[in-house]
């Protein structure tokens, strides 16, 4: 069981902030770098995410989900807001150019949260086309039109894979509605 850091952060514990950054900043940075057009934009977005995390830390409720879920809900919301506000998303050229993206770092399995591991296992159970669409949309911020063009399937099929894939993941992960957490 990973120790919860957000309650300590809410109390102003600098060591907890440091630990939280070491545990999660590479994940948020990796996601931001794929959602944003430039490294500068991704840096600003990453900083916005963590500043909001510090300010929201006292609202974290472990019975409602893990710290990773809390963090990534905020990260996604921030990145989505920026993408919609700026109309800026990564171009396919940028995504195809490995030289413009930072090299992935190895994941320390000891620090990999149980819930993330379960999500990886659930993703592996999806149909390959559902997994591919969700990877491009949720992991890289691509639009349904870009996905349609990239993998050569009709728009309607992209949407269908996306919604059925997400619903299936929810089922596999057993994510309850708020207020029904006791059954998890």
């Amino acid at each position, binding site marked *: 069981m990973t120790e919860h850091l957000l309650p300590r952060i809410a109390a*102003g514990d600098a060591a907890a902030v440091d630990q939280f950054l070491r545990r999660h900043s590479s994940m948020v940075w990796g996601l931001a770098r794929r959602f944003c057009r430039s490294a500068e934009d991704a840096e600003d977005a990453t900083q916005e995410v963590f500043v909001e995390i510090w300010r929201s830390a006292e609202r974290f409720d472990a019975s409602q989900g893990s710290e990773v879920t809390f963090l990534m809900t905020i990260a996604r919301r921030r990145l989505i807001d920026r993408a919609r506000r700026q109309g800026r998303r990564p171009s396919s050229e940028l995504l195809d150019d490995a030289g413009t993206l930072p090299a992935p770092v190895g994941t320390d399995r000891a620090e990999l949260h149980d819930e993330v591991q379960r999500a*990886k296992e659930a993703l592996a159970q999806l149909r390959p086309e559902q997994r591919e669409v969700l990877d491009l949309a949720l992991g890289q911020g691509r639009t349904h039109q870009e996905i349609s063009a990239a993998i050569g399937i009709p728009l309607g099929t992209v949407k269908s894979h*996306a919604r059925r894939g*997400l619903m299936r993941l929810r089922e596999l992960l057993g994510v309850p509605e708020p207020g029904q957490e006791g059954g998890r």
Partner: protein
Amino acid sequence: MSELQHLEALAEAIVFAHEADAAAPPASDPQATALQRTAALTAAALAHRCEVPAGLQARLAAAGLQFCATRAQLAAPAPRRPLSVTVTGWRTAVAFVGGIAAGLVLWLLLRTGAPVEPPVAERRAALLPAADVQWHWQAGSSPLRGDVQGDVVWSSDRQEGYLRFRGLPPLDARHRFQLWIVDGKREGAPVDGGLFAVGDGGAETVVPVRAALPIGQAAAFVVTVEDERGAVVSLQQHVVAIAKP
């Protein structure tokens, strides 16, 4: 719309929420909340962990430090003022104004024939008994940090402080070191603490703090490398040293 159609519409809206023309799913819908959590967890599973650039690491650490300093200040009980200084009245006011005036006259008199100020190392030594902060430097993330060592002393009462460095390599003529003070009683960016340079040869350098604003409660001192004219707000891209409790 059937329950299944409702869920499908929510799932599609959440997966493609980043698209400019996407409709926002209703925040109060519990099904939407559950699907948002699923999407967040999926994004975590799909995320490629990438090495965070050193400059960004420093910015994140400084922002976290600033938050903690502010939070610690909010959580701390307000200091109780001794009753003796809460006495009010015209006599106190007159005495106060008179004291200020006398001080000003004395300062002007001394200034006309002011003796040479003692060397900065002596002023630092003189401040030590009154200092409420004496923290050692920790190396920052910038490669310009060299083998930085030393400490910072600061007196909140006197609003006076000194930085002491060893092993901090000198910069070229187009750059200067700049001190930033994280103030636990102030929201926003750290306070500018002044520009400075260090000499060659690895000798010890002592630098006086020149805070641009009064410091309520020093929570951390950060040294960055900036343009020779300094920065109003540092991007914290080259942090060479940090001192904190």
